[in-house]
């Protein structure tokens, strides 16, 4: 199993991405089932790797039989398999939601089977790219996967037509800048050390520590990946992208896209480059920018009237929190950051599936449109409430434990940065209370507006169709389960991180 699964995990989505559109042109219904089955298989592979890495230790897989540092290596430990499970699992939900239709926001030109197949292919390609970023141990290979995932994401964002096209273009501008900066950085590293393998790099870096080019390389890589991870103030692409992406894709992109880049930051800066002077400075700066992002994202989320835009700004706040954890770098902080990635991905996916569907079907995105939804669709709204409570950080949801770990890490870290991070996280919880309960209050306690009832625009019956309602409810259950099983998670991920950093420290001469 350990010999086959790593290859399958990356190969399955990439091959599927090519096959599914072809299949779609011929058989529409089969394609839906086939795509879903493919995503399920990828998820199973990710779970298998997660299990295998947990039971029998990390897996090093040489692509094509060429061992590192010459060939490309894939590396599966607790961290990477965890994110892989997250990505593959969210993709299953997104694929299910895609049945909702390619143009839920009623803006895209007419849909055809081929078009649907192409969008399903784009989702598979995106998953393949993200899983590649998660798995690879080669910094240039990481760039390739970064570009694959970005191109697929642009397609999915633009598929809504209208404003989505503009949003995709803006995302493309930012994403291209990010990719180029990262590639420059990798170029510098290669020129300095003559290697692209992460382990090899870590071993060779101390010998070039004095070189000024190393500083430039670290900054280029950090800035490039920070744009993709939406670290404040490099977040410009995020709000419009999240808001204008068609719902099925938005649930996926908002859940995992930025997190995978944050994971790449964690791998490169937190593990490989952490030992360098420049790396340490950049990580310190990242804490402060994270603090600024947590506060700014929260404040601007409160300022929004449209629900999806509010969710987008709250994502910027959450990314700030994750990067605070990455910047601190202690075992506790890394646990918090990873847990927040998982908790926030589940909650944001749930909320974007729900809010996007409501926006499409209620024909409006303002908080007032949610009035009275609670009595019409109590189970869906209960699920969205769970997600909202997790975003605020109410126990026993997953969001509570991630904030708990991050707060404990801030206390342990101490110093001005620790105190600022602590205060910012508490403040963000308060702000989240305000902006989520505002929506929940409208949904549960307000009757729909008179004009609304008169025009009978809001039909009775379920608010969300099954392709969206099922992911929403499923994710809400997962949020609670993740919260309850927080401790095994900590036990599983932490040792791998500690041995990983210890190994790198040991390999450094």
């Amino acid at each position: 199993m350990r010999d086959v699964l790593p290859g399958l995990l990356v190969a399955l989505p990439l091959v599927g991405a090519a096959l599914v559109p072809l299949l779609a042109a011929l058989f529409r219904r089969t394609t839906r089932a086939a795509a879903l089955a493919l995503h399920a298989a990828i998820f199973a592979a990710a779970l298998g790797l997660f299990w295998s890495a947990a039971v029998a230790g990390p897996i090093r897989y040489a692509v094509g039989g060429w061992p590192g540092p010459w060939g490309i290596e894939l590396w599966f430990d607790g961290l990477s398999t965890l994110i892989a499970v997250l990505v593959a699992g969210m993709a299953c939900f997104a694929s299910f939601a895609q049945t909702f239709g390619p143009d839920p926001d009623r803006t895209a030109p007419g849909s055809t089977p081929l078009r649907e197949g192409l969008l399903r292919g784009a989702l598979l390609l995106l998953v393949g790219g993200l899983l590649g970023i998660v798995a690879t141990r080669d910094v240039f290979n990481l760039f390739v996967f970064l570009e694959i995932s970005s191109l697929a994401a642009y397609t999915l964002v633009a598929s809504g037509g209208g404003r989505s096209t503009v949003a995709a273009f803006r995302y493309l501008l930012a994403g291209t800048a990010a990719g180029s900066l990262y590639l420059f950085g990798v170029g510098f590293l290669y020129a300095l050390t003559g290697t692209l393998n992460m382990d090899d790099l870590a071993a060779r870096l101390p010998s070039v520590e004095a070189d000024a080019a190393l500083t430039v390389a670290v900054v280029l890589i950090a800035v490039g990946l920070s744009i993709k991870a939406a670290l404040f103030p490099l977040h410009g692409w995020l709000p419009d992208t999240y808001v204008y992406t068609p719902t099925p894709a938005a649930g996926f992109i908002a859940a995992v896209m930025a997190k995978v880049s944050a994971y790449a930051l964690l791998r490169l800066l937190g593990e490989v480059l952490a030992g360098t002077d420049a790396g340490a400075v950049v990580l310190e700066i990242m804490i402060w920018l994270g603090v600024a992002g947590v506060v700014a994202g929260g404040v601007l989320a409160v300022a929004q009237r449209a629900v999806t835009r509010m969710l987008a700004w709250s994502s910027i706040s959450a990314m700030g929190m994750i990067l605070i954890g990455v910047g601190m770098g202690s075992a506790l902080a890394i646990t918090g950051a990873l847990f927040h990635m998982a908790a926030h991905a589940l909650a944001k996916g749930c909320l974007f599936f729900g809010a996007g569907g409501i926006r499409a079907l209620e024909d409006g995105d303002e908080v007032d449109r949610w009035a009275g939804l609670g009595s019409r669709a109590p189970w869906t709204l209960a699920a969205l409430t769970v997600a909202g409570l997790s975003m605020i950080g109410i126990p026993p949801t997953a969001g509570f434990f991630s904030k708990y770990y991050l707060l404990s890490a801030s206390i342990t870290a101490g110093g001005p940065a620790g105190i600022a991070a602590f205060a910012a996280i508490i403040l963000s919880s308060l702000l989240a209370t305000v902006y989520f309960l505002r929506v929940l209050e409208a949904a549960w306690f307000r009757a729909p507006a008179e004009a609304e009832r008169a025009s009978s625009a809001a039909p009775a019956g379920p608010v969300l169709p099954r392709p969206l309602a099922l992911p929403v409810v499923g994710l809400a259950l997962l949020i609670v389960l993740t919260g309850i099983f927080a401790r095994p998670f900590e036990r599983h991920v932490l040792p791998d991180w500690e041995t990983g950093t210890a190994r790198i420290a040991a390999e450094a001469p």
Partner: protein
Amino acid sequence: MSALFLHPAFWLFAGVVVVFANRRRMPGVPVGVIVALGALLALLRGVEGTLETSVAGFRLVWFHADRLSLLFALVFAIVALLGFLYGSHRMRAGETIAALLYAGSAIATVLAGDWITFFVFWEAMALSSLALIWQGGTAGARRAGMRYLLVHGAGGALLFVGIALHLAGGGETSLGALASDSPPFWLILGAVAINAAIPPLHAWLTDAYPEASTSGSVFLSAFTTKTAVYALLRLFPGTEILVPLGAAMALYGVVFAVIENDIRRLLGYHIVSQVGYMVAAVGIGTPLALNGAASHAFSHILYKALLFMGAGAAIEATGLRRLSDLGGVSRHMRFAVAMYAVGALSISGAPLFNGFISKSMIVSAAAEEHLLWTELLLVLAAVGTFLSVGLKLPWFAFFGERRGVAVRPLPTNLLAAMGIGGALCLLYGLFPHLLYSRLPYLATYAPYTLDHVVSAAQLLLATGLVFYLARRKLAPSPGLALDTDWLYRIPLARMVAATTRALAAVGPVVRTLRGETVARLDSAARRLAAPGAPPRRRESFAFRASIGWTVLFAAVAVVITWLVVWLRNPG
């Protein structure tokens, strides 16, 4: 697992599921009555021991029964039962669920044995009480709920930080008195003070409680503040600063109550005042005083629920909530007025009623410790209490001049709940040992001594005389008496409005600077994507982030790095 069923809150939470599942088919209240009865019986059977689980690596003690927590849990279950009975003619599924969650989490909070469980249910209590306030359904309830949320959100954050610091500093995981003068001590005290409504942190109470439904305010009057009293007893016994705070609070609430016009807001100020007695008693810290605080909390919950039921009955019958509108309705609701009178005599500390057996204990404890000023303030507050609840409110609401107010007959269940409440107030007043035998600390006290009874009677008679002479001066005036909530109602609201205006003024400038390009691209893209499509409704462009800034910041970061590197090693 069987221990789970012994947890009284389990009954209430199970009731939530039942009500939710049957929300369209049946009214929720019978379920509420049944589960509250179940919880009550579970408590009366005398549950003991602890219930622990390990969740997510934390040792959680869900159930830790000792005399103190059982006393509070018992009275919480009683008042929940009364509340459901009282509201059963009008409470719908949503309100029942909120009330069940609220009562359940209050019981679970006082039974919690460790910090995390305590925090979890403390927060659940805040959220479910907010839901209960919002069930009031008016715009006023919505806005008051938002203000309530802000205050309790801040309180929850204080509590969380305090607990996190306490645990991070290697503190005990089980609940217990805190080491004084440490940061966790002050943070947690602040959070508890917010829930105990200690001025100036009390305005949320009188702001929000009158906005809930009539049945909702019966529940609200019981749980939040008394859970805070429990927390003070458990965590801060003998903290000296609480003595002056509590005494001042007792008088402060009364002063505002005397000038208040809205009947439920008036009663809300009396919660502040009566909790002041308990806070002062916790501060005194002798076994007698702590017993006094616990027993006064017990008595207070019963008579205060009864008073809110009486005020609610007047509102139900007439649809009016202000003293200046009501008047002369007593002939139509004699039983409710009689039961209200029982509650009013109890809160005033009249002998034979349950307020007397607990309030006099606190005053005696203050006297034993020679706290002259405290005793004086508490006695003064008792005068004001009788003046406003015992005389002013019934005089102007129930008796007084007739204004030809239409009065609807009251439902039986409402009167039954009031009857049971009144009976309990009398029962504990007549047989104090029923309560004293359950008190947590070792101290004996005899309420019915000659000097206690005489001084109480003197006080009440003198107050009655004063009221009779000055009754015209005390006539209520319509209008809103703003309290410390002025601080966040007026200046804060103005500040927010000003900020919004400023942002709105800056917005167009920024938009013109870059909006043209975006708009042009946008329309071009739309033409490309869907030729002939109708123009879409323009959405709000609030605070869009700019890509230009992103790229600019990235470029600046890189250029600065180049500069730094170049300056360090030129060449």
